[in-house]
């Protein structure tokens, strides 16, 4: 396939730009921000899924929550940083769970007391031969 020189240069510069951004992110990127972006996108996707499963549109959610349609659109774009208050309000409006907090497991422990054996009682000379006065019957 033949490409014009201009187009080829444009593509080349685009590739170069991506590489520069990647490099910059590798050096200066904040892992916490990366996580935040991922979580925001995940929350947006979850809200979109719930709306689909309930046969609703973004405008229906806006009506339910007395919000502007543009605000709900921003939520669904993944560019909004949600507060817990907003998430809970959406959950209440949709009657569905967006974020599930893992349950607390209660552990039951039992204690075993260990003792440090004293040296004297393992000496051979203090032991006498034992005999059995009957048979062992298994439980």
């Amino acid at each position: 396939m033949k490409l014009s020189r201009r187009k080829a240069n444009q593509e080349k510069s685009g590739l170069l730009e991506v590489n520069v951004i990647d490099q910059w992110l590798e050096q200066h990127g904040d892992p916490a921000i990366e996580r935040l972006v991922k979580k925001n996108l995940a929350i947006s996707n979850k809200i979109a899924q719930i709306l689909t499963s309930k046969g609703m549109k973004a405008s229906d959610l806006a009506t339910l929550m007395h919000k502007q349609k543009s605000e709900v659109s921003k939520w669904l774009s993944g560019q909004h940083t949600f507060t817990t208050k907003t998430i809970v309000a959406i959950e209440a409006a949709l009657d569905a769970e967006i974020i599930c907090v893992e349950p607390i497991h209660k552990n039951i422990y039992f204690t075993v007391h260990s003792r440090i054996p004293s040296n004297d009682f393992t000496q051979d000379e203090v032991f006498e031969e034992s005999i059995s006065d009957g048979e062992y019957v298994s439980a």
Partner: protein
Amino acid sequence: MNTAKVIAEKISLEKIKPIRENLDLGFDLKDKEFQMNIAQSIKHNLEKKSFKISLLVSFSSTEHVFAEYLYDFYFKVENMLEFVSEKDGKTAFTGQLLGTLIGLSYSTLRGILYSRLAETNLNGIILPVVNPNELLNSKISE
């Protein structure tokens, strides 16, 4: 007949002492039949409420004994005196208690040997489950 009950919480395994560990590494086991022998000796100390169980496990072919393991297991039994009686002028204990202690020792030895033999040509050998009464009857000859 003494019917004192064995209470697990009153028994403690205090010490495990390897006395003898012999293994002929050069012995070729390929296509050879071999047998396993188990023997025990039980000794006690009334004052210390303790028992010393010695277990001897040996593996032999028709040619010779190629592996031998002797371990001592030291137990304390809080209610030891409840199991004491006298037989032929000697201190005797109920079969129930001695069988339990032998069983505990033997099971522990099974785990120890499974691990000890892992890197040898006896790799994977698991001591068979045996009736404690049979163990009580097979004594280590002095």
